[in-house]
């Protein structure tokens, strides 16, 4: 009996390979990546961890620079028609897949058709709806998948036809939904086409190893057109669900880059890891949505404004979230292409004036110390959401005397309550998919169903957004959208809290890291010092 146990242990111990790292001339980058990637399938993924890896593996017609700006990718040059609905792309002749075959226009046609095909059931298909017939195809109304407005004119020329002018098309084309696919490997690989040795990619790296929940290893794609400039030979992505644990692994040198930092430790990090801490604005807004379908917030602008103005956003970001977040007085974050972010009319006031105004509005709405507002604030389980919610209720209590109760729900229950609109106040957040204000403003159109969390309907707003959609002149379009945002803010449809920031720990060995509003940091543009 004991012998058997002994041998079992012995077997287990010798079965695990050695920890000693063999030093070769290879540069390996160790990246903490947040969650385990759910899939590498370009059309099935929807999260940031997946997009980060896919960006290393694939290259779209356009791609991002180290600062997140759009630069030529698989396409070398492009032109658009006068009315902005016809685009032509000339592909690089040097473009190659990781199996050595050339990247041709048909690879894009194949990929985009697959993306909108209803049998693919892509969660993100709607992002491609500006392309001609894309919406009808993914709705199943149009069965002719080849009628999609993406055509290969020859091997190296691609034509894209749009439903209406889309000034942000290039931004869309840098999204993983618009990357090319290697038709043969996808068709032959079946369900397993995204596995190591099966996945064929056209980016700077190819997939070498993937152990779920442990690590995912990429190696350099020697056929990549810019391979000569790629400095890092291997990239290993680790799932790091626990931020504190990831930070420890960073401190031991097991990770070169972390995806995030534990917010409760930011003060400590600023003191002890200041030179590694990268904290920069991000295109996202954290806000409280109000249910406008029922009282007390329905048709009650005064009450909505009172709640919004009673919040001291600076205390919230300085003392509670502490991640350098930017107090938000508007909806669209700054840094959006060609867009001038708007603020609510009261943004110019000092905190005291806001509080005085908040009290006035609160009384106007018919509430007082004797008859306080009693509502519930719904948030999903998360340390950060909890802290913000507690602080908000404390401020509302202090300034207005409002009794706001907290309701915490598990993630999916919360989502269900949100889509059923079973809430009065709900914490919400929105992070842009691409750099365009419409990505934010579309959320409050009345024709988007439950995507609009507050069920707000304003014909003026809808009209302005529809006009903007058809406008091909970028400046005019921005004007229309800015007007729309003004309406949104004057109506106090949402309570903006802060604009997100990103937080990374980056080792001093890493060169070429540039903070940017898109939080895009392709491995191919990074360098790592191997000498100590």
């Amino acid at each position, binding site marked *: 009996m004991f012998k058997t*146990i002994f041998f*079992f*242990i012995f077997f*287990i*111990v010798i079965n*695990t*390979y*050695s*920890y000693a790292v063999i030093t070769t001339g290879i540069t390996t980058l160790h990246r903490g990546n947040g969650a*385990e990637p*759910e*899939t*590498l*399938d370009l059309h*099935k993924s*929807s999260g940031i961890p997946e997009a980060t890896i896919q960006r290393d593996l694939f290259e779209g017609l356009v791609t991002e620079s180290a600062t997140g700006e759009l630069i030529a990718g698989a396409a070398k040059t492009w032109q658009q028609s006068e009315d902005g609905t016809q685009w032509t792309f000339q592909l690089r002749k040097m473009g190659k897949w990781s199996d050595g075959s050339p990247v041709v226009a048909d690879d894009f046609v194949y990929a985009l058709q697959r993306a909108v095909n*209803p*049998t*693919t*059931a*892509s*969660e993100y*298909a*709607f992002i491609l709806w500006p392309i001609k017939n894309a*919406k009808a195809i*993914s*709705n*199943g109304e149009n069965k002719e998948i080849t009628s999609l407005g993406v055509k290969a004119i020859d091997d190296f020329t691609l034509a894209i036809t749009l439903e209406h002018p889309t000034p942000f098309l290039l931004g869309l084309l840098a999204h993983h939904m618009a990357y090319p696919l290697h038709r043969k490997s996808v068709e032959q690989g079946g*369900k*397993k086409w*995204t596995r190591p040795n099966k996945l064929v990619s056209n980016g700077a790296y190819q997939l070498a190893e993937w*152990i*779920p*929940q*442990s690590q995912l290893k990429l190696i350099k794609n020697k056929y990549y057109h810019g391979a000569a400039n790629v400095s890092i030979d291997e990239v290993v992505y*680790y*799932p790091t*669900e*626990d931020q*504190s*644990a990831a930070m*420890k*692994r960073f*401190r*031991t040198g*097991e990770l070169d880059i972390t995806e995030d930092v534990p917010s409760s430790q930011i003060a400590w990090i600023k003191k002890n890891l200041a030179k590694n801490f990268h904290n920069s604005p991000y295109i996202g807004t954290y806000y409280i949505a109000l249910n406008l379908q029922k009282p007390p917030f329905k048709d009650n602008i005064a009450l909505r404004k009172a709640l919004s103005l009673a919040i001291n956003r600076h205390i919230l970001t300085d003392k509670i979230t502490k991640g350098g977040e930017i107090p938000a007085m508007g909806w669209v974050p700054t840094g959006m292409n060609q867009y001038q972010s708007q603020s609510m009319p009261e943004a110019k006031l000092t905190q005291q004036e806001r509080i005085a105004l908040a009290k006035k509005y609160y009384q106007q709405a018919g509430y007082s110390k004797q008859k306080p507002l009693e509502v519930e604030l719904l948030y999903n389980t998360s340390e950060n959401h909890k802290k913000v919610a507690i602080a908000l209720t404390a401020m509302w209590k202090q300034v207005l005397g409002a009794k706001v109760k907290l309701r915490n729900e*598990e*993630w*999916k*229950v919360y*989502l*269900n*309550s*949100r889509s059923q609109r079973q809430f009065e106040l709900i914490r919400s*957040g*929105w992070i842009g998919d691409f750099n365009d204000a419409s990505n934010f403003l579309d959320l409050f159109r009345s024709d*988007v*169903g*439950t*995507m609009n969390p507050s069920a707000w309907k304003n014909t003026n707003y809808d009209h302005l957004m529809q006009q903007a959609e058809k406008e091909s002149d970028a400046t005019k379009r921005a004007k229309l959208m800015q007007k729309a945002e003004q309406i949104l803010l004057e109506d106090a449809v949402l309570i903006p809290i802060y604009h997100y920031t990103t937080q990374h720990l980056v080792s001093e060995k890493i060169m070429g890291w540039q903070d940017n509003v898109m939080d895009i940091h392709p491995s191919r543009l990074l360098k790592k010092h191997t000498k100590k």
Partner: protein
Amino acid sequence: MWHYFFKRIAGSIPTLFIIITIAFFMIRLAPGGPFDSERPIPAEIAANLDRVYHLNDPLPVQYGHYLLNVLKGDFGPSFKYQDYSVTELIQQGFPVSLQLGVLAIVLSLLIGMILGGLAALKQNSFIDHLVMTLAMTGIAIPNFVIAPILALIFGVLLGWLPAGGWGSWQHMILPIIALSLPQVATVARMTRASLIETLHTPYLRTARSKGLPMRHLLFRHALKPTLLPILSWLGPATAAIITGSVVVEQIFGLPGIGRYFVNGALNRDYTLVMGVIIFYGVLIIVMNLVVDLLYAYFDPRIRYDE
């Protein structure tokens, strides 16, 4: 004995069936679906997803399909980790959890029984209190506290061991310690109580008064009955520990299957959750059967055939 064994094996099939059935409907009753996310998706897209994944079929039909597939040994693809099938995920993760779990349980049995035995023999002495206090520390300090402390001390500050990850025996040491500390406490406490009880039974008192040497007494006569309550605990505890711990896995970044129980449920990854439930159900049934058979070995008076 054999009669009992076969009866139990036959009995496990309906047990498993009941587990699958209740679990299946329970999971579906919970609000939210696998494709709900922070970013709400347009209704048309949601309809596509439901159709392709057969989520809009009536529930009994889905249940029938699922049962048929399980009979064929197919647990389906994971909803969350779409590139992998549930079987693959369990196959990848279980060896990790099994290695850690078995080592942790063996370690805790060894240490726990020695500590518990020592305490029992010196009942109510200083040594007893010291040993029990020591053992209790393991259970008084929760996993999610001790694991980061271990990683901080041995990983970050001393640099002796990696703070996380998987791949070598060094990676296993801290997780095993974190996993076994609470178990050591449990084993030690139960051994102490049980051994005191056993030593007080008339036949051992007689044996003692006859002047049999203590060592002989302990290993020949006292050991087996002492183990009885520990054995009862060991069955479910082993099944639980070899299916991994989500806390320890997340803190040390281990690719075990413990996280699938919690994360699968949080993500409403229906197939993955069902897969791990069935897997765990089988383990529980097997472990409890083994324990029941071992009862008869440790205490020959126990008979099942009546």
